[in-house]
């Protein structure tokens, strides 16, 4: 039986190329890359021409990806990751709520909706704290709040941006080594983990900011925490970010359109292959 996989994308990153190459190497897979900038989604027509068995959502844009997935699911299609998982992972505040509901250790978080209350809220977690936009990746606009004066300046600057930046999501700054851990969960398996080591002169660990990827052993604690966090957000193909706090691991976010260009060479784990296997098995089940 031939399995028809469609990959929805916008920008072709290293990851999209690797997934395409892997899928096209399979004799039992018919693979179609679909640029979401080219599609028209007819909400009134369930007999859509998108007749693939499964869709892999790889849009680089959070909002385009979310709404595309929502419509495809409405039309009865199977999308990985599904809408509920994506909407939770795409929003750091909703992710925190999901972790707290399941009792998963996560940094102490406060939320406020005005400049004055945000400044008071920081006192609740104490300085130094961190301000994060609830949407976004790659460390973009993640700011350290080191003292009241710099916090005021940073909070004030957010008032000039889109109103979503007035949802002030503030977290304690966890005492961690200059690295964090990214684990990769595909279905019910933790398939790889890396340390992300902050680049010199940078406190954020994102590899997009020059952070270095080094292999990390999947300890029982990492495995348990990764699977719990994946389950909390609804499961799928996920990247779990966690920090080594003095009291053990704390999970701070889960990513739903995982990048692995640094993880594959660092760990030797063939993540594109595992993604295609997961899609094939999901259709077969």
């Amino acid at each position, binding site marked *: 039986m031939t399995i028809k996989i469609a990959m929805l994308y916008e*920008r*072709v990153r290293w990851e999209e190329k690797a997934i395409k190459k892997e899928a096209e190497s399979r004799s039992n897979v018919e693979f179609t890359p679909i640029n979401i900038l080219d599609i028209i989604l007819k909400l009134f027509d369930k007999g859509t021409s998108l007749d693939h068995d499964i869709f892999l959502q790889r849009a680089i*844009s959070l909002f385009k990806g979310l709404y595309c997935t929502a419509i495809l699911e409405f039309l009865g299609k199977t999308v990985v990751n599904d809408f509920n998982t994506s909407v939770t992972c795409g929003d750091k505040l909703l992710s925190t709520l999901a972790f707290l509901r399941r009792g998963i250790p996560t940094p102490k978080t406060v939320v406020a909706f005005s400049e004055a209350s945000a400044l008071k809220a920081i006192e609740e977690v104490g300085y130094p704290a961190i301000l994060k936009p609830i*949407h976004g990746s*790659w460390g*973009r606009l993640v700011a350290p709040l080191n003292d009241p004066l710099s916090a005021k300046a940073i909070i004030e600057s957010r008032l000039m941006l*889109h109103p979503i930046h007035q949802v002030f999501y503030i977290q304690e700054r966890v005492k961690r080594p200059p690295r964090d851990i990214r684990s990769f969960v595909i279905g019910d398996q933790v398939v790889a983990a890396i340390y992300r080591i902050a680049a010199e002169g940078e406190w954020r660990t994102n590899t997009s900011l020059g952070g270095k990827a080094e292999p990390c052993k999947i300890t029982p604690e990492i495995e348990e925490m990764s699977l719990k966090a994946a389950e909390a957000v609804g499961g799928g193909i996920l990247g779990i970010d966690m920090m080594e706090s003095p009291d053990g691991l704390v999970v701070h976010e889960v*990513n739903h359109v*995982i990048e692995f260009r640094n993880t594959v060479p660092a760990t030797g784990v063939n993540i594109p292959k595992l993604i295609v296997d997961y899609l094939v098995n999901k259709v077969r089940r």
Partner: protein
Amino acid sequence: MKVECPECLAEIEVPDDVIVGEVIECPECGAELEVYEIKEGQVKVRVAAAEEEDWGE
């Protein structure tokens, strides 16, 4: 396949298996170019858009 860099007009070699949405770097000027159309073996590129606020993983 070959295409002209819209930034520096250099002639760039594009891999045959290129697909729409791929970003290639002009070896002459370093501009990041996005492939936006492939028709009858003709590739069209434009200077790639900068990172958007909701981009990510």
